[in-house]
């Protein structure tokens, strides 16, 4: 193959770009799961949530979440029409054992399950000084607990309050979207045990996922859209009072 100087110079930049991928090596071969084929998210259907706390208990059982800390929790909102911007919000023990019964009154009650929003542009991963927290190529924000220093920057950075410092490991801990389950074809523990289907794991890269039809035909929002975090937990019929 004859290459003159002109062609050699033209090919140099291309070779430089390709070299980056040569150095990175090929991704680990996984028989059934390719990270690039998924972009995970979750759909939460507020009118379906009954506040039973199954998701909170399932999450704790699946992930060994320490008592008093939550990777997911449920809040009960009470919005009154005389003070709509100041709703009364309760979450006794994260809603783990459900909520106290209430009588019908002038206000409006509803439940809001919360978890890590697995933001596409998450503030928590940007502040980590050591690269211990990151978003995977399939859209899940994870913590590398062997690398985390426990400085707590990410805990402060999360606008949704979804992170905590593990009391024994002294490192940041958070919802992994049950990464060990979804990579094996299972759904998350919270979705698996939600009795009403209020929580549904969704794959935005899967063209056959029912989420696409749902997003087109429902009033779906994310939490704190003004923060431009690229949150991927979608709430159907979210009340304006929810923060």
């Amino acid at each position: 193959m004859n290459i003159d100087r002109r062609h050699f110079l033209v090919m140099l930049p291309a070779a430089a770009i390709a070299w980056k991928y040569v150095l990175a090596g090929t991704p680990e071969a996984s028989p059934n799961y390719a990270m690039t084929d998924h972009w995970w998210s979750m759909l939460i259907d507020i009118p379906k949530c009954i506040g039973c706390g199954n998701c909170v208990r399932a999450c704790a059982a699946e992930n060994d979440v320490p008592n008093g800390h939550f990777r997911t929790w449920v809040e009960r909102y009470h919005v009154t029409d005389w003070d709509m911007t100041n709703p009364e919000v309760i979450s006794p023990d994260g809603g783990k054992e459900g909520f106290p019964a209430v009588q019908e009154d002038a206000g409006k009650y509803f439940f809001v399950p919360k978890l890590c929003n697995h933001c596409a542009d998450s503030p928590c991963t940007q502040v980590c000084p050591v690269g211990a927290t990151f978003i995977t190529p399939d859209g899940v924000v994870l913590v590398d607990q062997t690398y985390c220093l426990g400085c707590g920057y990410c805990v402060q950075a999360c606008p949704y309050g979804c992170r905590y410092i593990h009391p024994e490991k002294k490192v940041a801990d958070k919802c992994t979207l049950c990464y060990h389950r979804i990579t094996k074809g299972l759904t998350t523990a919270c979705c698996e045990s939600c009795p009403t289907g209020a929580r549904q794991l969704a794959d935005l890269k899967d063209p056959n996922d029912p989420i696409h039809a749902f997003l087109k035909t429902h009033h779906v929002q994310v939490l704190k859209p003004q923060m431009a975090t690229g949150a991927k937990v979608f709430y159907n019929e979210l009340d304006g009072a929810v923060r």
Partner: protein
Amino acid sequence: MNYFKDSAHLFRFFFLFVVAFVVFLVVRHFVVPKSFGEYGHYRGAAIAEIAARPARFAGHETCETCHADVLETKKAGKHANVNCGACHGPLANHAADPSIQPAKLDTAVLCIRCHAASAAKPKGFPQVDAGQHSGGLACETCHQPHSPAIQTGDTK
């Protein structure tokens, strides 16, 4: 040539700089994990480590491979879309080794968790005041949890 006459001290400094740089490269090679930067500014191997954890909830598909009869009962009733784990809890160990018997469930606690009456719940969801509704009888006296509508005639 005059410019380089007294440059020996500069070469010494340059030599020290090169040594320090080589030491930095060597230390960096051993300290930074191999997979760091594989996908981004983090340890790429962490993804596989987190994914490797065993699951505790087996998933309803696993349950249904053995308990097909329960699936049939459930399909006909209102609890068709309630997954096994919602009531039975995490039973991956039972799925892996069926000789491990899961604990007996207490319907007095389980049913009420979802079906206790409260104005906070969605209006269409079936709710009862347990005391008034059953007068102290256990739920499963009348309702079979896998298909809760009250059956007439033969009930298991």
